[in-house]
């Protein structure tokens, strides 16, 4: 089973509101993660413009030699993306599950301010369970 390196959530204006890294590979400091987030936000927007077909919703998967980047954008404009080992399966499903966790444990928390960085313990707990390898395998049923 391949590994997930990191998870990012960016708000609709491109600000990084959540970052978490898993495992040793691809670890970075806060500045780098912010840079990746805003870079991805812009690249995603540009890809929509460059697309020869109309109604393109942006890059969903970026495959590189050393990592895969899977991105999911909700209709409200929030982007969730994971960086993982090349060839990792079921990442689309995982991103959908993370979106659900975000709606349950972040948006329903009355003390969470919209568009602001996520500091919700319940979200962290549920998230770490969801990204466990075995759980991810279950999604691929």
């Amino acid at each position, binding site marked *: 089973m391949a590994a997930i390196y990191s998870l990012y959530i960016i708000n609709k204006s491109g600000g990084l509101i959540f970052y978490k890294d898993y495992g040793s590979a691809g670890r970075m400091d806060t500045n780098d993660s912010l840079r990746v987030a805003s870079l991805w936000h812009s690249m995603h*927007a540009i890809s*929509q*413009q460059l697309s020869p077909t109309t109604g393109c919703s942006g890059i969903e998967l970026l495959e590189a030699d050393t990592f895969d980047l899977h991105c999911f954008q*909700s*209709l*409200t*404009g*929030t982007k969730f993306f994971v960086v993982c080992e090349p060839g990792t399966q079921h990442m*689309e*499903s995982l991103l*959908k*599950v993370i*979106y*659900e966790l*975000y*709606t*349950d444990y972040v*948006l*329903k928390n009355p003390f969470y301010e*919209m568009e602001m960085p996520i500091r919700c313990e319940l979200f962290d707990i549920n998230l770490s*369970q969801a990204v*466990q*390898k*075995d*759980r991810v*395998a*279950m*999604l691929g*049923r």
Partner: protein
Amino acid sequence: MVPKIDKLVNVLSTADKDVANFQVKLYDEMTTIEGLTEDGMYDATTMMATKLDLIREFFTMPNHHRKRDLIMAPVGPRSGDAIFANVERVNAELFTLTYGATVRQLLTDLEEVEEVNKQLDQMGYNIGIRLIDEFLAKSNVTRCVDFRETAEVIAKVGFKMFLGVTATVSNWDADGTCCSIILEDNPLVDFVELPDTCRGLYYCNILSGVIRGALEMVSMKTEVTWIRDVLRGDDAYELQVKLLKQVPEEYPYKDDE
């Protein structure tokens, strides 16, 4: 004969015994997950039976997580009924009474009925801008082609999912930007009679705010007003939803220029 088997079992580590135990119990355990279909149970059982790590994980999961992973696993748009059957719900009476208490408290605090209407609408708006994401995440609906489809989705999936009732859409205007959402049944008003002092109150004004807020997050500016209200002596609840402006989402945003 029997003692021999016992010995054989003892050779296996305790962890392996657990797993063997789990395998036997797996299907029974599946049947406790409310809302999982026969086929779903079968699929999930066969999928897990051979995967030892997965089985161990499954048995330590709380039921609502199993539900999310096994039933809610994303597969195309889901009907309002299907979602309603699978989300956690609260007692309807608790919900109705809590809303009643909120409206009562607002009336006491703000004194003016007009102010209460405004406050309820604002509260609804604040709920709507967050609720929309839950709606999208759990219903798996994709982008609507036009406002007509949007209205249908709100009435058929949205109302069902969050309030357990369905609404009908009618009274479309010629250019398809204004319609009525009609509610026959409204769980908010179960025990309510409006006194004469509150004649101007739109008791369910929170709902109009929710719709306005939710649609604004998917770039539709709308105006939502009450046309009919059973509490005011009409025969149904009718909300008029008027599309004012559709903000394009594409870059560059207009105000950046």
